[in-house]
């Protein structure tokens, strides 16, 4: 079996508030970049598949040269190989999926593509379904658990709204996983050392035969959201007094 995890390098979540509108507009970020947290769960999911059903798990990203660091993190967690699809142009779900689809075909016999729930910078969550449609493969989103993988099918539990749905679909398949798939494991010392030495192959759109289309999504007027004008009003006294005053205030706000 062959599993491929799609990851993106995104800002450290603690530093997201520091991203300026100018940086966001240009994509030239000065903040620390790491593996998108949802994709760490995807890596964990991909590694569990390898452990439970045999085969190899690789990682792939579409990004600039610097994204190699994210791939090294994936290798350090235990992925067996990594590929950078080098593309620095502006992206949306459609053109990223074009590149990923070509790279997946190029990889050979991929059985399961594992992706995250969404990116913490783009925040769309659209890419997995777009990729699945481009490949002509089924897509299972919100995957909390893999129940069974066979030669030609996969059964998973999906978390959809308030329900948990057990679904079977034929492979090859695209999954997007949620956190319940498993807490990302820590890299081992040996894997970190190995990861540092691995030569990571770099593919360009030309290598993949993709003429990358312009994004179909246009963004303008990057700005900070209006600051919360909140100046906190504290209620004092005994817990009972404070509680009563707070409930009165909330009734006045008409939120109760």
């Amino acid at each position, binding site marked *: 079996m062959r599993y491929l995890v799609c990851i993106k390098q995104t800002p450290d979540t603690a530093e997201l508030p520091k991203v300026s509108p100018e940086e966001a507009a240009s994509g030239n970020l000065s903040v620390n970049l790491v593996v998108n947290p949802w994709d760490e769960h995807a890596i964990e999911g991909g590694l569990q598949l390898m452990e439970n059903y045999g085969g190899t798990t690789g990682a792939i990203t579409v990004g600039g040269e610097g994204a190699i660091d994210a791939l090294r993190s994936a290798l350090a967690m235990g992925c067996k190989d990594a590929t950078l699809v080098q593309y620095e142009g502006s992206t949306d779900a459609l053109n990223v999926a074009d590149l990923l689809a070509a790279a997946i075909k190029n990889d050979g016999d991929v059985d399961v593509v594992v992706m995250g729930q969404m990116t913490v910078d783009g925040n769309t969550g659209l890419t997995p379904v777009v990729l699945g449609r481009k490949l002509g493969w089924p897509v299972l989103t919100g995957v909390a658990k893999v129940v069974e993988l066979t030669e030609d099918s996969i059964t998973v539990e999906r978390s*959809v709204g308030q*329900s948990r749905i*057990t*679904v079977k679909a034929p492979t090859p398949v695209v999954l997007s996983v*949620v956190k319940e798939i498993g807490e990302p494991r820590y890299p081992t010392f040996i894997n970190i050392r190995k990861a540092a030495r691995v030569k990571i192959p770099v593919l360009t759109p030309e290598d993949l035969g993709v003429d990358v289309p312009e994004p179909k999504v*246009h963004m303008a007027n990057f700005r*900070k959201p209006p600051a919360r004008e909140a100046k906190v009003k504290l209620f004092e006294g005994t817990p009972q007094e*404070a509680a009563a005053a707070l409930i009165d205030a909330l009734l006045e706000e008409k*939120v109760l």
Partner: protein
Amino acid sequence: MKFLVFIETDMGDAVASSWEALGAALSLSEDVEALVVGDKVSVVAEEAVQRGASKVYVVEDETRALFDLDRALADVKHVLDMSAADAFLASHTLNGRDLAAALAAELDAGVIADALELSLEDGRLKGVRGVYSGNILVDVTVDGSPQIATLRPRAFAPAEKVEGRTAEVVLVDPADADSPYEVLGVQRAEKGEISLTEASIIVSGGRGVAKDPELGFDLIRELAGVLGAAVGASRAAVDAGFISYDHQVGQTGKVVRPDLYIACGISGAVQHLAGMGSSKIIVAINKDPEAPIFSVANYGIVGDLFEVVPALTEAAREKLGK
């Protein structure tokens, strides 16, 4: 501009935030049609009429009782051909998001995803959405016909229901579509449990309950019960096993937008704020007056949640007459 709004259903019931998408469309245009896909959905179709759709397409079939991506996509494409709408809207639920993505791939179109605001400018749809987890806002337009947008639940007022409205209801045959998905089982949330993303009030607990997590969350649930609120949690509370993951609010949990968010024993880390920072009113209950949550809160009580939360429940019972 003509809109087609997808009304998502689940076992015959409308998903509430679908009415917000209908409301958003009606605030921009008089030419708003709705598409209801599901099983035993005549009541939902009637509701779409009362809520102001000028025409309602209905695809009713057993195979549509639960959302199925391939079938829903085929139905939407079929109805788009009939309706010739300029814009397609759905709520940014998991299913709405997936449907929009599939349609975008099919039509080679962009998506204004998870929009917080929507307007028309020069005959084009313009959305406002958050990127960098809500830390930056942008205006978004998209290529493609129809223009596709998904809307953040609770960001738009639902279309109002007016009894006695009439509109044409068109029964459409389910589109021919083989689905690769075989549903083997469905497990539902306990009756009465309110969904975080749809809740107008949320009471959340964090690591502050640690000295007696079971009692702590019992107290939080009791307050939530009296207020008709959903129960949320910080990641620290989830990771410590105090409550299950589906309650997690934040960066790697759910993004919520209630009118009232009561954070009990939650410090207010940026990753938590990423999930609840756009709540209308934030209340913090924390024993540490320096906790960062107080810098985003509108109201607060500095104190021990084990004393303050039951006092709130008591006061709410009294003042709300429950």
